[in-house]
């Protein structure tokens, strides 16, 4: 396993750690729920406490239109065998007393749905736990080793060039969120992804005030409180391509205004640290788990703002694809072909706000 920097240093260590599987489309539900089930025993499997905390993820609806969309999603989630409960504004207020649920809000909270099995995990621990387990199974983890090119012979990958010399391999699997386009270019093909900054921030730590994860598309933000006491906030991506890991202040301001609007008591807390990551986003806001135009070269990318929550599931089905050179039922809908035929998995509704 080759890592340009340090393991977990990309989006794994930069995301806001939300885990859920309440997606609209069957294809998405299948992969995220697969991941969710793996999360549920992962700390024990890795013998590393990932602090996987099923504290619940509550998604808000702020208009009749959003309520209708929410009902559609909730019904689909339920019939896919995934848990989700609809909550009234009163129930939401009981669950989250600090939220302003008054009808006078510019975008009043009209309802919401909660996935109680959703929650958060300690992102660094996930990287470290997996690394330790992989190491124990004989994987060589080489950090500070960037891939600079591919060895390709008659359309088949034969290995990689790296900053520390060439490595021959009969199969190569790329999971390089944030730079999938750049790495694909090295192999001579292109991916339908654009790379954009996604920002997040934390407040100073305070005593617990929020137990569940809150997401709102209409006012564009999501928030949870970490075990350390920090409020962890995020919003959507910047509109333009960039690899700088620095985003616009406008996005931060919009996110914080939305946060104060819904949680007035956050106004007097202080932003402690903000940061950016680079997310590779596909036109349909769904990922790519696929063979590529180069034989035996595979890509798992394009997760946009939602890759962390899928970690165990996406890794699992990707490993299967690499081993068999054939996608299984969960991975198949996420192949690159879909952009040719047009059967996209349009998750803009579920991913409208980053998460």
């Amino acid at each position, binding site marked *: 396993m080759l890592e340009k920097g340090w393991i977990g240093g990309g989006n794994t260590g930069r995301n806001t750690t939300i885990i859920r599987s309440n997606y609209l489309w069957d294809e998405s539900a299948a992969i995220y729920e697969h991941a969710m089930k793996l999360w549920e025993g992962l700390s024990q499997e890795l013998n590393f406490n990932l602090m996987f905390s099923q504290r619940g993820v509550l998604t808000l609806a702020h208009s009749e239109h959003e309520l209708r969309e929410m009902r559609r999603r909730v019904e689909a989630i339920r019939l896919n065998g995934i848990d989700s409960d609809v909550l009234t504004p009163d129930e939401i207020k009981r669950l989250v007393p600090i939220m302003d649920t008054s009808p006078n809000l510019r975008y009043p909270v009209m309802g919401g749905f909660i996935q109680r099995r959703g929650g958060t995990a300690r992102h660094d621990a996930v990287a470290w736990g997996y690394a330790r387990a992989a190491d124990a199974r004989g994987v060589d983890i080489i950090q500070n080793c960037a891939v600079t090119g591919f060895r390709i012979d008659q359309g088949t990958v034969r290995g990689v060039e790296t900053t520390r010399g060439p490595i021959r391999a009969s199969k190569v699997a790329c999971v390089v969120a944030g730079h999938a386009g750049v790495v694909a270019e090295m192999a001579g093909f292109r991916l339908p*992804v654009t790379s954009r900054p996604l920002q997040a921030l934390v407040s100073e730590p305070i005593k617990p005030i929020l137990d569940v994860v809150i997401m709102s598309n209409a006012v564009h933000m999501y928030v949870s409180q970490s075990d350390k006491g920090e409020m962890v906030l995020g919003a959507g991506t910047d509109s*333009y391509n960039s690899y700088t890991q620095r985003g616009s202040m406008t996005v931060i301001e919009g996110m914080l205004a939305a946060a104060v609007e819904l949680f007035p008591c956050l106004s007097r807390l202080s932003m402690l640290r903000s940061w950016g990551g680079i997310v590779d986003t596909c036109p349909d806001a769904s990922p790519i788990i696929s063979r590529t135009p180069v034989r035996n070269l595979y890509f798992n990318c394009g997760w946009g703002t939602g890759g962390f929550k899928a970690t165990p599931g996406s890794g699992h089905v990707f490993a299967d694809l690499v081993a068999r050179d054939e996608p299984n039922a969960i991975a198949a809908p996420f192949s690159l072909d879909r952009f040719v035929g*047009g059967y996209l998995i349009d998750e803009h509704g579920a991913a409208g706000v980053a998460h």
Partner: protein
Amino acid sequence: MLLINCPWCGPRDDAEFHYGGEAHILRPANPSALSDEEFAEYLFLQQNPRGLHLERWCHSDGCRRWFNMVRDTATNRILEVYPMGELPSSQSGLAAWRNNWRRNSAAERNARNRVE
């Protein structure tokens, strides 16, 4: 927070602008002649370089005019701003335009048929 020099209004915060993705994508003149694969390239593939990027912006909260820009996506440095329908004047910008795979794509050949 980029400072973008709108050709009509002068330097303004990026918040006033709308990003329009890769510049110089020609719409196929006769898209029916393209295969699904060729059309998908036109529809979904966007240049996504770590480096110089030729891109379109619209001063949507100002004059509402579209224009082109060359920006380095690794640093956010803006090399130049130039009108729609023109090519970059900087050597590096022009090279980035010329070296784009799209210049040889079926969709663009199809589009040029109309022009020529």
